[in-house]
């Protein structure tokens, strides 16, 4: 196995042509092109067998630019900084190799090649003012007061002293003066659209035929996502009906996923639990049929899962999303999730959040509330059961309800009352809580102090 090939960067610069046109020239040689404001950088490493050595590459780049009618300057070097510095200066350094046949042709630009390992010498004769376009405009007056005129003089200074004077900018200045890079070339990547649509020859109606159409659309999209190492963060399904009505559904996914079967199941379950048609029509119908189906996927970097030998594996987000969608189709939207407490003293206050999010971030939420063993759990009546309570000196002695199965009876033990009130600005409550032991169990009963009505709040079990 040989040594990895060195990275060679070519810089194309033209005072007249915009960077977009220069990028078109550069993309004829390599897809790895980084566009700057007035120049482009292209990774030409690996072109040795296709085009030739760096001087040949530089000459071909210049020729391609000429065919596009661009008067360009081409500089090829092992570093971005050296190539850019030499391309920006009209007079290249003494160590620059002038490409035969491409040097100082009037009106046709020129090309130079900087030998590998000679970047520092190649830029040493360039003036310091060339650094102003790299964000060092503030430091240049100071360097000028020090009597420095060229990059070579700056590179001769100790980096530690520059750091002491300028901080991190001093080290960056020294690297630039030596023709070294502070970061690798970052190619511009055109955003890939993950969308697909199909015009149906005959309208379809119902979820079952739609399932086959979705599979046909999602399979290639899933493959494309996998090839791009992306997952879907959200998926939008747009159905164009025969009535020219457009129905759009958007699913926010709890984790990046690209399994076509899972995505199809989630879309179908969403349509099943949120039917398209009105209340009086068949739930699975689509107003006469679907003419066109379109899917648009929002990509996001794929999920990388690191499993642990010490932690138990949790269900995958795909499994959980499918399960929750199926459960919501049965129980209703918003009735499946992870319970969470809210910052309130209101009895029975809670919220319900999406379960998948919490599972994914479980390792940041390992706080476990320690409490007494065998503490009694309240089984709360979400709709309080009205009750009639007989009192003796203000204490409950008998509880009677009309609810079948809750017989009530004589109070055997009692504890309370515990008074609580609040929410006067929104949902007011002003209650007395009692815990009473009846013949068939221990109940929590509540008296509304405003209306003096009693109800059963729950059973301790």
């Amino acid at each position, binding site marked *: 196995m040989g040594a990895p090939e060195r990275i060679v960067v070519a810089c194309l610069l033209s005072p007249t042509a915009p960077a977009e046109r220069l990028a078109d020239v550069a993309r004829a040689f390599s897809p790895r092109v980084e566009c700057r404001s007035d120049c482009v950088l292209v990774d030409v490493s690996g072109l040795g067998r296709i085009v030739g050595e760096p001087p040949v590459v530089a000459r071909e780049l210049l020729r391609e630019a000429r065919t596009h009618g661009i008067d360009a300057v081409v500089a090829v070097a092992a570093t971005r900084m050296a190539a850019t510095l030499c391309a920006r200066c009209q007079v290249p350094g003494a160590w620059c190799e002038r490409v035969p046949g491409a040097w100082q042709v009037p009106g046709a630009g020129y090309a130079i090649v900087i030998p590998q390992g000679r970047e520092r010498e190649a830029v040493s004769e360039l003036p310091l003012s060339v650094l102003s376009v790299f964000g060092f405009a503030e430091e240049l007056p100071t360097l000028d007061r020090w009597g420095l005129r060229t990059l070579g003089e700056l590179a001769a200074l100790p980096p530690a002293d520059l750091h002491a004077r300028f901080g991190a900018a001093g080290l960056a200045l020294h690297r630039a003066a030596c023709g070294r890079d502070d970061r690798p070339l970052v190619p511009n990547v055109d955003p890939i659209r993950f969308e697909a649509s199909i015009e149906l020859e005959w309208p379809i109606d119902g979820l079952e035929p739609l399932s086959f159409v979705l599979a046909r659309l999602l399979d290639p999209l899933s493959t494309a996502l996998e090839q791009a190492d992306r997952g879907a963060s959200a998926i939008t399904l747009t159905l164009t009906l025969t009535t020219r009505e457009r129905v759009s559904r958007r699913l926010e996914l709890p984790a990046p996923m690209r399994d076509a079967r899972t995505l199809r199941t989630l879309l179908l379950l969403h349509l099943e639990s949120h039917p398209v048609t009105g209340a009086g029509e068949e739930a699975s119908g689509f107003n006469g049929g679907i003419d066109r189906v379109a899917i648009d996927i929002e990509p996001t970097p794929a999920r990388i899962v690191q499993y642990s030998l010490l932690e138990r594996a949790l269900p995958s987000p795909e499994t959980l999303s499918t399960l929750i969608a199926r459960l919501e189709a049965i129980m209703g939207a918003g009735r499946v999730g992870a319970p969470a407490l809210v910052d309130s003293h209101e009895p029975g206050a*809670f919220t319900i959040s999406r379960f998948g999010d919490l599972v994914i971030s479980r390792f940041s939420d390992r706080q476990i509330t320690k409490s007494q063993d065998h503490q009694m759990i309240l*089984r709360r009546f979400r709709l309080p059961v009205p009750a009639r309570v007989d009192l003796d000196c203000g204490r409950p002695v008998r509880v009677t309800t009309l609810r079948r199965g809750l017989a009530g009876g004589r109070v055997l033990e009692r504890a309370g009352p515990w008074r609580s009130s609040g929410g006067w600005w929104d949902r007011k409550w002003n209650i007395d809580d009692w815990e009473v032991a009846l013949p068939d169990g221990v109940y929590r009963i509540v008296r509304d102090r405003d209306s003096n009505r009693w109800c059963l709040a729950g059973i301790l079990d």
Partner: protein
Amino acid sequence: MAILARADLESLLRVRKLDRTLVPAREHRESIPTGLSTLDKTLGGGLPRGELSEIVGPRSSGRTTVAFGAMRSAGESGELSALVDTFDRFDPESAAAAGIRLAGLLWVRGESAIDPVPALERAVKAFNLVLQAGGFAVAALDLADVAPSALRRLPFTTWFRLARAVEGRRTAALIVAPDHLARSPGGVTVVLEAAPRWVGSSDRARICEGLWVHPSVSLLPAS
């Protein structure tokens, strides 16, 4: 002689793929503790995984406390739990106070419907889906407030289907009910009786601190 005959019979059942009614060796089963030391000791570590068990008893006998104790154990080991709440009786506040990690609990809320039969059917369907999905250490179906008449309307095969769904998985499936309903061959029936533990003399100072739980376990003999 009886042991040999039993072994022959079991091998015959396995050949015919009718061995689902055989009880696996209990000492090799994984279990999840309930937090009640006496009950865990009787059960040999806790409620068995991969089996359908039931926790039965009258009101205020500690059924919910025992089921939530298993969920708390699951949360402490970083595992997930699921609760199919048929009539929406779950109280997050008291569950959190009992030590349950709410973030790791999948709560499937039913409805306090007047007609309990549709709510019960939906809950059983949801419980079946949870068991089939797997990945939960404890999955509980709360039938504690379901009337016996509604339970009788469920097909008897329902419980076989649930037991089949959890078979071979690492989930301890629980049914919380007022009376014996069903369990898988390797599952257990925990029958609870309890008395509330009152502390304090006057009404205002008194508090129902907890339960004196007296569990009894019904299980098939180990093979």
